[in-house]
């Protein structure tokens, strides 16, 4: 089976609303705010709604930047995105004046400096934007508090959170066979043992739920069943608009594949006959990108009835 990395990443823009917005603005100004619920408890980080009455919480009060560790663990090998890039402790920390605990990192240096009940204080990030990471981490001990900076009064409405994840994408056995054939310049179909339809690429027959088996060579010529002209730019696009994306029913297959039709673009029509344009053979690998696009062949159009049931 074949595998390859799949990396996804986006900088999410989180709108915060009134409670979290004030909390983040506080962090920017080196203040920690908690929300007070109807029972008088102060929640840090703040809750937006009262757990008992469900009413919106509007009463935000400042708590200390020092606190006590209620629980902890130790990370020898920090992961991407975590607050510190050297071994550190995670802890549930109840700030002085708060009734609940927040999760954050403690820069304790070594595991043996971590213990339940230890006192810690906030190390503020030098660059603060109104984000939970304005708290760089916590440090052991109750150092003299850093005075809050002047309240700028600027509200914080959005916080940006990058999310980057790495996956390994693996193909199925059938897909791998198809891709290896593509690397040799061949299009491989497989026939369903139940409905006898030929699938390109091969797969479990979605109509019958059984693997397709019998290998059937499929020609790299086909018929445009339907298409659209893409005039709109969007993220991740490979071609500059306008271009034609068509459903192409390859000769010998029973299901169309989507692909670009280039050349004579203004003339693309339902029933048009097209042929694959391949990369130079020396560039062929196990990828559908070996076929760059399709081109009109100039043959007479296929009659509507011949592809009607593939629309």
């Amino acid at each position, binding site marked *: 089976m074949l595998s390859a990395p799949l990396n996804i990443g986006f900088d999410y823009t989180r709108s915060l609303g009134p409670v979290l917005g004030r909390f983040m603005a506080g962090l920017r100004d080196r203040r920690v705010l908690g929300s007070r619920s109807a029972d008088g408890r102060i929640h840090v980080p703040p809750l937006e709604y009262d757990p008992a009455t469900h009413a919106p919480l509007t009463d935000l009060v400042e708590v200390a930047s020092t606190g006590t560790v209620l629980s902890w*663990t130790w990370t020898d090998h920090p992961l991407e995105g975590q607050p510190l890039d050297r071994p550190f402790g995670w802890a549930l920390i109840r700030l002085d004046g708060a009734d609940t605990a927040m999760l954050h990192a403690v820069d304790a240096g070594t595991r043996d400096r971590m213990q339940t009940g230890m006192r810690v204080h906030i190390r503020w990030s030098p660059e603060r934007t109104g984000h939970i990471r304005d708290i760089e981490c916590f440090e052991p001990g109750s150092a003299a508090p850093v005075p809050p900076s002047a309240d700028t009064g600027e509200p914080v409405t959005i916080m940006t959170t990058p999310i980057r994840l790495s996956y390994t994408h693996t193909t199925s056995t059938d897909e791998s066979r198809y891709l290896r054939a593509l690397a040799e310049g061949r299009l491989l179909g497989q026939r369903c043992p139940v409905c006898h339809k030929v699938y390109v690429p091969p797969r479990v027959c979605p109509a019958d*739920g059984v693997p397709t088996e019998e290998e059937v060579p499929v020609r790299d010529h086909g018929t445009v069943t339907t298409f659209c002209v893409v005039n709109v730019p969007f993220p991740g696009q490979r071609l500059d608009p306008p271009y034609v994306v068509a459903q192409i029913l390859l000769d010998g297959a029973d299901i169309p594949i989507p692909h670009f039709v280039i050349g004579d673009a203004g003339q693309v029509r339902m029933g048009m006959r097209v042929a694959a344009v391949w990369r130079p053979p020396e560039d062929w690998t196990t990828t559908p990108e070996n076929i760059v696009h399709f081109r009109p062949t100039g043959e007479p159009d296929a009659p509507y009835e011949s592809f009607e049931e593939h629309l």
Partner: protein
Amino acid sequence: MSTPRVAVVGFAQAPNLASAGTTSGVETLVPVFRQALANAGLDRRDVDFWCSGSSDYLAGRAFSFVNAVDAIGAYPPICESHVEMDAAWAFYEAYVKILAGEAETALVYGFGKSSAGLLRRVLALQLDPYVVAPLWPDSVSVAALQARLALDAGIITEKAMAEVAARSRADAADNPYAQVRGPVDTDAPYLADPLRVHDCAPVSDGAAALVLASGDCALAAPQRAWITGVAHRIDPQGLGERDLTTVPSATAAAEAAGLPDDLDVAELHAPFTHQELLLRAALGLRDRVRINPSGGALCGNPMFSAGLARIGAAAEQVMSGRARRALGHATSGPALQQNLICVLDAETHEAEGREAE
């Protein structure tokens, strides 16, 4: 309208493996469906309702569950639904569908390729996206914070945790689907203090399918485990908001499901040793109850089907006659946030007004 009696009549799973299959799950699911239906004595066309559980973030792309429908052979069209949860909650949706008289049979499935990404980092995205997830606390560290609270409070001991691991791995020796077996090294290094390797479930790829039937369909099946109660609850997520040494949602679900005192077997979905201990306390399980004869999630934890597999394993205990009454439990979210309880019985008996009975 009398409430239909509903039974589990078939179960099958893929072997739990460190790496297997694709993120779409299609090729893995085809033989699992076939086996589950064969066990139930049903054809796929006999299934009134299909319901699945899976997660886009396990696969790293949107609409990842859509492909899996191909494994069913869904043409002519079928009646189908999906939850972005462990398939144990798909089981609940299917069960309710049958209770409502909208189906007599259902096939429930879950699948996931946990190994496609770095699972414990991916799971950080289940945490509050404003104040927690941007720090990327991994799922093992979050569990460790819970374990230490319970240790510090004297509710559990490291010795008891190691015993859970040893018992689970010994039991897994007889489970051909298990991923982890064999002895426990009690001096193994910490993954996240106080959790050692054997305290944590492995990262598993897998899938499972379970068949439900009511009334005559259930009676016609080769084997059955009657469902006498199902309920689930969720706790607030805030890790510093609630007492992580208790599991109120599990306790409440057990109460609502009418968890009996005379259970023979409990299959608990506890991906960490300390969580089994917390669950046993939350559910009030007595010492005579046999816990996780399958080896449990500690020996194979395919995300999004492991909870369903606990119900399946409990049902197999009843269907095989090894147990008269069994509990299947599933959990979801960080630190046992959400919990589902399913009580299975060799005999059907009169409803006692339980929720979802």
